[in-house]
């Protein structure tokens, strides 16, 4: 029984893992561009680098579980033009993140904006218009 339960658990975990997103910078195919999520959490890491900057954030949900979110935005060159620097966020900062979530439901997103504890709002760069709709795919 114990083995059977373990096997089922492993299979479910495998299916869930397989459903996690595969996506690249500059693509929006993995994101649900009709939704956004707003999360209050604690910054665990702010990575100011190419190809995209990354924010890691611990969020405690209604059940008391801590969920480790990661959200991307664009590269330092682009983000510097939206008021961001490598020092915009630091470990321990309490922030509110609004992001496009990925379709799979994994705790992964793309930054729409971040509100710092002092009320300052840092806008992300989101442009789903660069995505091509399936119906627009040419037939060669």
């Amino acid at each position, binding site marked *: 029984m114990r083995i059977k339960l373990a096997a089922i658990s492993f299979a479910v975990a495998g299916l869930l893992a397989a459903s*996690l997103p595969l*996506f690249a910078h500059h693509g929006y195919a993995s994101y649900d561009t009709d*939704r956004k999520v707003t999360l209050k959490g604690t910054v665990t890491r702010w990575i100011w680098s190419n*190809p995209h900057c990354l924010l890691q954030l611990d969020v405690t949900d209604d059940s008391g579980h801590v969920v480790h979110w990661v959200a991307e935005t664009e590269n330092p*060159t682009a983000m510097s*033009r939206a008021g961001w620097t490598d020092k915009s966020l630091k470990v321990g900062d309490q922030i509110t993140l609004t992001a496009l979530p990925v379709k799979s439901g994994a705790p992964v997103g793309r930054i729409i904006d971040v509100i710092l504890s002092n009320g300052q709002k840092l*806008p992300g760069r989101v442009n789903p218009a660069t995505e091509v709709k399936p119906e627009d795919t040419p037939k060669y």
Partner: protein
Amino acid sequence: MWKHFFVVPGIVLAALVLSPPLRSQTDKPSSSAPTEPGLDGWGRPITGLAKDRKPAPAPRHDISGIWDEPELTGIQPLGAKSAPDDGKPEHQLPYTPLGLQELKRTKPSNGSRSVLPGDTNDPVFSYGDPQGLPRENLYELRTTQVLQTPQSVVILYQFGKTWRVIWTDGREFPKDPEPRWYGYSVGKWVDDYTLVVDTVGMDERTWVDRAGRPHSADLRVEERFRRLDHDHLELTVTIDDPKMYTKPWIALDKFVFELQPASFDVREMIWSPSEYERYNKLMGNTGGDRENH
């Protein structure tokens, strides 16, 4: 032991995947454009041009300077800006049968033929190959510095910290040259303000643009740099490859750069393998296998 080995990771993974966000909304997010000029590579504010500034006349035979396009439209994520791979009929390219055949061999991770990142064969993302020419003009065209000597024009591209030389000393193309990523470029002033650059000898491994448009060894690229006035430089790029396309087509049409101050320090923009690996680990593949892009 078995229980801990399988059940605990299963519960943790399920919690991670199924945990709902604290609050969901259904209104569609809006786009955002650059909100301020930002900082240059030295951490100093980018001043930009004053809106009411009246530019001085263009200097003769001179396109030197540090050039930028503030709206960042040089990124061209869907392929060449003037012919993006967005599915619109007016942007369909005049492929030859061979061109179509070669197009089907490229698997870009953006545009109408987009594949999953792990399935792309984009030489830049899969292998770290140079973009080469003309792709350097057609993907991530950002701050561009132009230097001139009596014999040449040297272009320094921000993306990848890449440079190339355009010879303006009147030389001919080499005979039967070995292929190069950036080919062989010669430039000629056709009037006081227009430098026309022809390039041949590009390596066939490169793509024309981010959308995987193909080219052959017969590719010839024309870049037409036109100094509109002291503060503005216009670039038009034309692709001519009779093996792949039935006629020449314009990939970049009158793309306008703005002159930056001579003291502008261009920010580094290098996609290093280690940064790629970290990005893919955190964003692209939580299963542990490294992705190509």
